[in-house]
């Protein structure tokens, strides 16, 4: 299936989800759905660098928060429509991703992971001390109840849900296209053996920079509408541990070598977290992630997709 066909099918599925949400007429579906879609984008973005290239990024929350705080800054300076804020968030986080890549990509393994974590701490400290965007007190963004689009009144949360749905479709299509392209092969060589990749002619530094930039840009895009969704943005929530942990856990539970992995992981983990939030408490969310991660490391170290692939391979062998 080529990229265009995949994109059209993904849009089709997106429209079906939207139709279902309309039929349900339940605002909570939009709130919960938005969060799950946001995690699909974050997990897919993390997987571009972490899964395809093998560079574990612990700083996902920082890229997400950069997108969110770009929106706060623009909102206070010169308010713009959310889709434009998403593009700005992508540019800011993509630029920081490029810079981080340039500075840290000579590091490998745990050293790279620690560097990304350090970057998140540095950025959080900057935001905490930046009063214009709310500093440690946080910033209120009062979103309108409805939005007028060509004479149609649309619920604002539904609008945000649609934007995140579109972004999820774009992120998944991008990840799948990369996977089957020359760039995807380049990413995989970096994950397997960087020295052999260079000897085969792969410009590893350039390829890694593309990965950090793309990954950062998608995370920033996911973060840009967040202030409008949550209404009150503070550093502790934007740079929250749950974004960093979920961005890693979701692809790992789903499987990191394919675009399906982060999708499956996000839907599974995101839904469980939403159910736990309404039935028990959001405080158990990280516990769920931890338990599932331990279980998957033991039962299916290659994630659900890897488990299914292994079973299919075993069945094919006589």
């Amino acid at each position, binding site marked *: 299936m080529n990229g265009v066909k995949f994109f059209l099918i993904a849009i089709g599925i997106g429209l079906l989800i939207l139709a279902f949400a309309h039929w349900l007429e339940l605002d909570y579906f939009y709130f919960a759905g938005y969060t799950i879609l946001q995690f699909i984008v974050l997990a897919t973005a993390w997987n571009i660098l972490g899964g395809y290239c093998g560079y574990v990024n612990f700083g996902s929350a920082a890229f997400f928060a950069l997108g969110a705080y770009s929106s706060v800054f623009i909102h206070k300076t010169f308010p713009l429509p959310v889709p434009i804020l998403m593009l700005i968030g992508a540019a800011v986080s993509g630029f920081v991703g490029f810079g981080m890549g340039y500075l840290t990509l000579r590091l490998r393994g745990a050293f790279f992971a620690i560097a990304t974590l350090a970057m998140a701490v540095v950025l959080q400290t900057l935001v905490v001390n930046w009063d214009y965007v709310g500093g440690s007190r946080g910033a209120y963004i009062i979103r309108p109840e409805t939005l007028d689009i060509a004479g149609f009144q649309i619920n604002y949360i539904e609008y945000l849900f649609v934007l995140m749905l579109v972004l999820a479709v774009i992120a998944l299509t991008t990840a799948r296209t990369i996977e089957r392209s020359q760039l995807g092969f380049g990413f995989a060589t970096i994950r397997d053996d960087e020295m052999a990749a*260079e000897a*085969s002619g*792969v410009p590893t530094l350039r390829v890694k920079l593309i990965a950090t930039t793309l990954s950062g840009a998608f995370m920033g895009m996911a973060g840009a509408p967040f202030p409008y969704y949550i209404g009150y943005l503070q550093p502790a929530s934007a740079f929250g541990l749950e974004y960093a942990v979920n961005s890693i856990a979701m692809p790992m539970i789903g499987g990191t070598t394919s675009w399906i992995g982060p999708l499956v992981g996000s839907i599974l983990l995101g839904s469980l977290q939403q159910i736990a939030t309404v039935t028990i408490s959001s405080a158990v969310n990280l516990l769920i992630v931890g338990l599932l991660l331990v279980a998957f490391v033991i039962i299916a170290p290659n994630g659900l997709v890897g488990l299914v692939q292994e079973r299919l391979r075993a069945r094919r062998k006589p």
Partner: protein
Amino acid sequence: MTEAMSALLHVDKISKRFGGFVALEGIDLEVKPGERLGLIGPNSSGKSTLVNCICGTLQNETGTVTFDGHVVDGLAAHQRTHRGLARSFQLPRPFHSMTLADNLRIPLLYTVRAREGMLHAHSDLGARCHELLDMVGLAKKAKQMPRDLTQVEMRKLELARAMAAEPKLLIADESMAGLSHSEIEDILALLAKLNERGITIILIEHIMSAVMSFSQRLAVLVSGRKVADGKPEDVVRDPEVVRAYLGQ
């Protein structure tokens, strides 16, 4: 015409240190187009460091490396590969997550395409991969993963991947280590076939019978210095080589 211009590879007084350890000291080496050069030396003599400096994995501190008439100092390893310098590794380093065919697809995509600016159709790439695998006797295993290969097959894959980059110079770093006599014969025949196609080969090897039968010229490194360079039969009789390398 100067030496550097007529030689395919000209290494001029290169040195490399790791802290206080001198790995290479003022090495000169010249390889002519189509030549089969054997490079020998005891362990820690600097052979792999020299290969790494030539291929760009390490940067030499002094001296210059000229390849195909161009000074390549400062170029990254992949840029040197694009210029026609390929290597195989002492310990095979396949791309574990890819099939054998895809392992060969990488240099075709990133080197041949970058060099020639050609837009290969995917079917063309597939055919070329198959042709290369056929050359090393692995065509039937094209869709298998490297973990399914034996040691000798892994070495052949390593050579096939280097060949996929369509090099002018191939550096085979201990391609026969740990192989049986018949497997060594296999690899030697393969290298000879590649040389007949016009590819210059530097063979780094400890197995003297293989080096002697393959090489037209032999260079010897000892403790980071080149102690001999000449016809194999003369070099192995050189007193310094006998003393340092053969331990007599």
